């Protein structure tokens, strides 16, 4: 059947099972948008900034496991997507971005709203395409979805010149892709799996470090089987949180620079580390030379380029977590590690990273804990970046699989609201809480209009400390309290909500917290709570930059003595 390029795109999207597209139109994609009425099964959500479209597609994809789709016009529309695409790239999120391009005869001539978006996104996409004829559209869309979703997922961009949307060609949707250069390995090598089983069966102090790969692979059951059969304690990365129930007796929270003290001590003492679907990010390992100094390291990852990249590995297994664990679990002998588990429990008691101290003022950790209690841990939490993110990771227990959505690799402030929007669109029956900082929230605040127009019932908790808090903490600790450019004013967020047309509350006192959260929960639509929290509250524990995991800082007392010399600081970003 003959179709226009625009129809081919829509038809292909329908065949890929796409339900929703986040985007903003413009001249270059006008012919595409004009065909939308012919495809009512495709819901288009008009965002207020293309960054929001990319983050929404990202949130949608993380929450549902399906490919998220965003769209933008050529030039500024396309460049506005860039941060969101990079975010999806660093956290391995399957997103397909479709951009309009100037018509073919104008390419390369600095035409109006022309930018080389395939060039710009080359290092931040898994793959990208510039489409030069309509007939190739079905194949390209098919490949793009396959690439985005399979192996190690990631964003794929398709750039389509305006006149290609209008051209007509025969539509054939391929049933298979033919990509000789792309063959992800899913099954682990049997000999390596055998070796791993032997090491696990013999270890005295084994520890699993589970990452986002477990969530991507949806290997929740397999991980639990392994843990329970071999009685191996589990810590997770930030993005691994919720891959294993945090209330489980063998769960010891998050490791890393901002991880739990006892989780970091466990890594330091372990004689075997089984890293599953995690990439040894520098936030997770802290100083690499001091990482797991007594342990053999097993690394299970689908991406061979991750093996041995940051940390020496004794047994690599390239494969999909689920497939590998299924095989591995067959070879695991039931075991107990009573002394080791006891040791970890003792550390947890001695270094209780989740205790909330008594305070007059409103503490962010108190707010988060109350959200946990009111929602009974059943919500999906989407965070901003900074202290709010850290607090949300630490003071809420994630027992429900895939219930924390956060920007880890890029650490993108402004991710929270549009991502939460995407999560809610993908999981309309879930309660979705967006936990924002007052800084990050102001970066994508415009999406409030989108959630109102599209009736997306996101609950928003702003942890308002009047600072770019995380950076202020670094200034306090490492720059002698010189608060350069971190004090931050903001609007009256309740009035903002009101102006956008939905309700909100400002909370200043502890006793108002629970009623406000309850009110938000009862409300049908979106709801915003502006929590006026302690302005200079810090997040602990913390491993100072350049230190090893074992050198975790806990009590605020120590900080002044240990750290006041910024000159000694190694280079590290917030």
């Amino acid at each position, binding site marked *: 059947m003959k179709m226009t390029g625009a129809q081919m795109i829509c038809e292909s999207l329908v065949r890929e099972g796409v339900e929703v597209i986040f985007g903003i139109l413009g001249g270059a994609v006008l012919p595409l948008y004009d065909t939308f009425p012919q495809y009512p099964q495709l819901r288009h959500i008009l965002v207020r900034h293309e960054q929001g479209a990319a983050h929404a597609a990202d949130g949608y994809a993380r929450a549902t496991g399906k490919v998220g789709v965003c769209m933008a016009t050529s030039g500024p529309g396309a460049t506005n997507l860039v941060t969101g695409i990079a975010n999806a790239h660093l956290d391995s999120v399957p997103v397909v971005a479709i951009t309009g391009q100037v018509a073919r005869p104008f390419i390369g001539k600095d035409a109006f709203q022309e930018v080389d978006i*395939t*060039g710009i996104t080359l290092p931040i996409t898994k793959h990208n395409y510039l489409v030069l004829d309509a007939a190739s559209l079905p194949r390209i869309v098919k490949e793009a979805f396959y*690439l985005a979703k399979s*192996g190690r997922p990631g964003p794929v961009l398709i750039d389509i010149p305006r006149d290609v949307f209008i051209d007509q060609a025969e539509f054939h949707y391929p049933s298979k892709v033919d990509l*000789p250069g792309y*063959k992800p390995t899913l099954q682990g090598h049997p000999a390596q799996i055998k070796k791993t089983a032997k090491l696990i069966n013999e270890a005295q102090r084994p520890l699993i470090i589970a990452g986002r790969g477990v969530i991507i692979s949806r290997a929740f059951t397999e991980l639990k089987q392994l843990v329970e059969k071999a009685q191996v304690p589990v810590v997770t990365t930030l993005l691994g949180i919720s891959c294993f129930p945090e209330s489980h007796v063998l769960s010891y929270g998050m490791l890393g620079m901002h991880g739990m003290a006892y989780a970091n001590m466990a890594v330091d003492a372990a004689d075997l580390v089984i890293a599953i679907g995690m990439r040894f990010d520098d936030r997770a390992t802290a100083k690499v030379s001091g990482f797991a100094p007594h342990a053999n390291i097993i690394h299970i990852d689908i991406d061979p*380029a991750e093996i041995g990249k940051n940390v020496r590995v004794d047994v690599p297994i390239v494969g999909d977590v689920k497939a590998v664990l299924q095989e591995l679990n067959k070879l695991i002998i039931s075991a107990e590690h009573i002394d080791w588990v006891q040791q970890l429990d003792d550390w947890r008691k001695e270094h209780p990273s989740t205790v909330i101290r008594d305070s007059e003022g409103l503490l962010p950790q108190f707010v988060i804990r109350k959200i946990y209690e009111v929602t009974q841990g059943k919500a999906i939490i989407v965070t901003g970046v900074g202290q709010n993110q850290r607090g949300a990771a630490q003071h809420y227990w994630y027992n429900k699989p895939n219930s924390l959505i956060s920007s880890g690799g890029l650490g993108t402030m402004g991710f929270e609201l549009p991502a939460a929007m995407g999560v809610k669109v993908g999981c309309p029956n879930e309660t979705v809480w967006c936990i924002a900082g007052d800084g990050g929230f102001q970066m994508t605040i415009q999406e409030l209009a989108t959630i109102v127009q599209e009736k997306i019932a996101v609950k928003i908790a702003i942890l308002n400390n009047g600072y770019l808090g995380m950076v202020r903490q670094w200034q306090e600790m490492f720059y002698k309290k010189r608060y350069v450019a971190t004090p931050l004013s903001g609007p009256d967020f309740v009035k903002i909500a009101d102006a956008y047309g939905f309700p909100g509350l400002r909370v200043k006192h502890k006793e108002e917290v629970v009623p406000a959260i309850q009110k938000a929960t009862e409300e049908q639509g979106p709801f915003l709570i502006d929590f006026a929290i302690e302005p200079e509250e810090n997040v602990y524990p913390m491993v100072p930059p350049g230190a090893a995991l074992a050198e975790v800082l806990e009590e605020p007392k120590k900080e002044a003595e240990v750290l006041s010399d910024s000159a000694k600081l190694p280079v590290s970003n917030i």
Partner: protein
Amino acid sequence: MATTKHTIVALVEDKPGVLNRMASLFRRRGFNIESIAVGHSEVPHLSRMTIVVGGATTMVEQVRKHLDKLVDVVKVSDITGDDMIARELALIKVKATSSTRSEIIQIVDIFRANIVDVASDSVTIEVTGDEEKINSLFNLLRGFGIKEITRTGRIAMTRGGSGSLPVQKKSPKARAKGQKTSR
């Protein structure tokens, strides 16, 4: 970290942007590509590429893995330590007068090079060999006055039957098993 010279051979799809994608992985790490040579392979739509780059072995291995992840790259290996045949072709235009021409021809003969163009004031020599041979010829000719030199950069393959990167003529299924892994 000590840097060494690495010879990487890659089998890639013959598509726009492939070279850009590959070069970008080196650029990102600040590596300088010494030479790059590309041409068609024995299979339609696939090209074979030889890249020479200096860098620490662990870093180069990391780049190799990332090259392998590129969708348009079918296969890639670092054959530096292997027993390989490495050749380069150079065209050298040398100043020549009636009095120096015969001496130049003698040198060219010793190097089993060819004269491919003769003009009133110059000769152009074509030479193939490893870099050392080309460098020594260049050094010997320098005295006559070099007007221009252009070199292809290294092309290489391993010795013996197996080949550095043969295109596998198996069924797609068998190929999937035996082949590279990518993200």
